[in-house]
């Protein structure tokens, strides 16, 4: 096992929590990052520890560039250098484009896209030095695909996929891979109230689970995925097929 840890942003619940747990099961010490849900994060860390893994909770609002700098410094000093990053922290603020406020636009872009850029920028330098790194961006089928009421969310996720591809080619020759996972409809707090009537459109006729996304994250973080980079792994029960 490499000397390093996995950082999962926004992992107090949902796909982030499942990803943190899956990476810990793979042997990675995991930094469970959260913004406001300290109890949720602690519960995730506790689950990991009970299963014999290593986990630390770490508070940081990834929208704040100074908090990102502090987060990495803290992890490097008292935990381990970050060799796996899962950019998972995400929000939605829905509305039809004519009614979407500047604030709703900016908050979503800032959290889902700009924060992922800043976390990745900071993480890449030590990864390049280590000749190993894994960046996994949690995108969405919304972005490559339309979803009325989510112009801001779709723009952020499509942006994340474009970002993934270009960064991947920049660092590929240093053993650092950068990929995206694009979940379809997964039942989490984020998708509360979204599901009504959608299941009919999903070929699998059911919502996905956070664990079904996390298992893909775990694969992309593994040594087995060393030649997979710049790609987007769609996990949507056939929705966008």
């Amino acid at each position, binding site marked *: 096992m490499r000397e390093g840890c996995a950082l999962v942003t926004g992992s107090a619940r949902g796909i982030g929590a499942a990803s943190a747990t899956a990476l810990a099961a793979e042997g990675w010490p995991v930094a469970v990052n959260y913004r406001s849900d300290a109890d949720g994060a602690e519960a995730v860390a506790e689950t990991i520890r009970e299963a014999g893994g290593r986990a630390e909770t770490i508070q940081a609002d990834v929208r704040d560039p100074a908090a990102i700098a502090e987060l990495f410094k803290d992890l490097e000093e008292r935990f381990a250098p970050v060799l796996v990053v899962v950019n998972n922290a995400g929000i939605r603020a829905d509305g039809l484009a004519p009614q979407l406020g500047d604030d709703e636009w900016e908050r979503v872009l800032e959290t889902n896209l700009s924060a992922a850029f800043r976390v990745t920028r900071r993480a890449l*330098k*030590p990864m*390049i*030095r280590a000749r190993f790194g894994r960046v996994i961006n949690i995108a969405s089928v919304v972005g490559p695909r339309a979803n009325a009421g989510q112009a801001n969310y779709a723009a952020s996720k499509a942006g994340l996929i474009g970002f993934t591809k270009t960064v991947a080619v*920049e*660092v590929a*020759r*240093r053993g650092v891979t950068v990929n995206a996972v694009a979940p379809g409809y997964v039942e989490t707090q984020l998708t509360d109230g979204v599901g009504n009537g959608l299941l009919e459109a999903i070929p699998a006729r059911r919502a996905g689970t956070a664990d079904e996304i996390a298992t893909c994250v775990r694969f992309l973080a593994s040594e087995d995925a060393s030649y997979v980079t710049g790609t987007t792994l769609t996990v949507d029960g056939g929705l966008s097929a």
Partner: protein
Amino acid sequence: MPAQATTESVEQVIFDGLKELGAEGEVARSSTFEELDVDSLDLVELAQIIEDEFGVSLQGEDVKDLRTVGDVIDLVVARSQ
């Protein structure tokens, strides 16, 4: 604590760094990165080595006009003062 950045110490770290990054041939102050076959990603990594060693952070704007090894040495020494 970052090391004291003297011309000699910076030169040593940069020469060693460039060799580690697979620079081709003899490294001298007058060598251009093109001659050494050092590409933009190598320069990013060299900037990281410099930051770790001397605490001097070099960003995009700083490095884009650097052509020779001497240019980098002078910049790092100047920045660390």
